[in-house]
């Protein structure tokens, strides 16, 4: 006979993988909706393609590895991975970008390392970086939902463009695509413009587009706050990433404000907010100790700004996350909290 064991008011374990993943998906919704509103249907097409291929790749790999397929598919971790990955992709890119990247992320970055919980690097960022390095040209195909001349692609037209590269008559690719803010500022700076002129000339003064990154950042910030509120993520990593970005960009800005963008610009453009709340906080690849999380996040912020200012790519969040992923074992080793009654961890021999 079995006796129920819960006599005292014991707290129930609340966080199953599935619950956490569902909450993350909910938190991604505002950002995804704003991205679709600003950038068009291409965003949703990317997300759908990435999720479907991600799930298929996961199932195939688990089958090959003779592991149970159903629990890994239904816990939502692949969906979150593929979704976060797809949000990094250019909205006017061809269909094989999300497909190839999702396969690489799931097969190489996740399953070859042992599946959920064993991967060393953030799979979504690995998928994105592989695409960025391997296919530089398609990875620049960004463009707003409504361009300067008022042309806009509906869902079927976006799908046709993604799958076959066919645009409706009268719409040119050059009219649709624009440089992202970080791209634009970088080009202008390389051409010798001051940072003031470079930011002022963003998108020919179109206010909606100027605030493109602002709206996205706000939407992802709302999603991030939701995750904080529901206890999906801790405050240390996002705060540390943002602090790192502000400190490093502030330092450079004070050093020479004609060559370096302001801290506010760095905070609200590119993937800073998205990365701080959704990418860096991946529970598997981030640091696990409270102090370690602060170091991990701060490092991501600093490296991001350094890559943006001195590297050869316009944004550096993905590279920064991967670099700091490498440091996680070391950080965790040196930041183990002291166990009550013991001396400093690591020193007691």
């Amino acid at each position: 006979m079995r006796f129920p064991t819960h006599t005292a008011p014991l707290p129930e374990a609340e966080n199953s993988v599935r619950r956490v993943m569902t909450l993350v998906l909910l938190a991604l919704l505002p950002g995804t909706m704003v991205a679709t509103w600003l950038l068009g249907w291409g965003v949703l097409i990317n997300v759908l393609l990435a999720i479907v291929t991600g799930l298929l790749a996961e199932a195939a790999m688990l089958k090959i590895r003779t592991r149970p397929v159903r629990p890994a598919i239904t816990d939502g971790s692949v969906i979150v991975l593929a979704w976060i990955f797809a949000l990094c992709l250019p909205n006017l890119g061809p269909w094989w970008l999300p497909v190839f990247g999702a396969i690489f992320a799931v097969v190489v970055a996740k399953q070859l390392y042992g599946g959920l919980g064993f991967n060393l690097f953030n799979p979504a960022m690995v998928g994105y970086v592989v695409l960025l390095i391997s296919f530089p040209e398609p990875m620049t195909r960004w463009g707003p939902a409504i361009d300067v001349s008022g042309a806009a692609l509906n869902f079927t037209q976006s799908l046709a463009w993604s799958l076959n590269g066919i645009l409706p008559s009268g719409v040119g690719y050059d009219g649709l695509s624009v440089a992202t803010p970080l791209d634009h500022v970088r080009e202008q700076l390389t051409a010798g413009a001051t940072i003031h002129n470079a930011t002022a000339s963003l998108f020919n003064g179109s206010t909606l587009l100027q605030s493109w990154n602002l709206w996205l950042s706000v939407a992802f910030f709302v999603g991030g706050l939701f995750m904080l509120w529901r206890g999906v993520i801790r405050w240390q990593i996002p705060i540390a990433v943002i602090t790192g970005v502000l400190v490093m960009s502030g330092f450079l800005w004070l050093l020479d404000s004609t060559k370096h963008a302001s801290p506010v610009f760095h905070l609200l453009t590119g993937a800073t907010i998205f990365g701080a709340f959704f990418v860096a906080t991946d529970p598997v690849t981030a640091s696990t100790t409270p102090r370690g999380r602060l170091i991990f996040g701060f490092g991501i912020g600093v490296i991001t700004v350094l890559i943006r200012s001195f590297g050869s790519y316009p944004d550096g969040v993905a590279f920064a996350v991967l670099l700091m992923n490498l440091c996680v074992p070391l950080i965790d080793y040196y930041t183990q909290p002291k166990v009550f009654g013991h001396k400093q961890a690591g020193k007691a021999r």
Partner: protein
Amino acid sequence: MSDVSYRELTVQGLWKNNPGLVQILGMCPMMAISNTVVNAMGLALATMLTMVVSNGLASAIRHWVRPEVRLPVFVMVVASVVTIIELLMNAYLNTLYHVLGIFLPLIVTNCIVIARVEGFAARNRVLPSLYDGLMMGMGFGLVLVTLGVIREILGFGTLLANAQQLFGPMATNWTLHILPDQAHFLLAILPPGAFMALAVLIALKQGFEQRRAVRLTQKSNIKVAVVASPAQ
């Protein structure tokens, strides 16, 4: 080890103790130069030649070298051989010489050369030593060329591009275009691609060996522990 079986030397060099896949020696040139087939072939031939000649020389002088100074002496021998090959390639394969660049003189420091000289030639007769150098060099070269094939097809979409650098003017039109221009996977020709491709090759070899061990076990009904160690 006075009487060595040539069959065993062949199996050891090409498969069981392959320098690239099992000993995992000489990684640096293997990663750096395997981005096209022709580069890989050039370096593979140079390395193989170095190994054969230096193995033979080291074996020939092994009785006159005191054990205390054998390593410096062997390094001198290898360095001389590499210098000769380098000068020859500069004279007759000049473009390839410039493509291979620093990695040609660096064959001196390739661990696999000194490993075979010290591990085999220093205690065996000349003929088996020459043969061991040939087989080990070929095993290294085969992995190098396989990597070159994989990386060139994925990264450039071609095969045997610039073959004239190695085979002379008659090879100008040997280039095969396998993938369309759109589908070049640039990562394959960058350093991470080399590591991934080599890792896949090592995994394939290990998987093959493991399966064969399992099959053999089932056949003879003897329990053999299947050990998959990357380097022995």
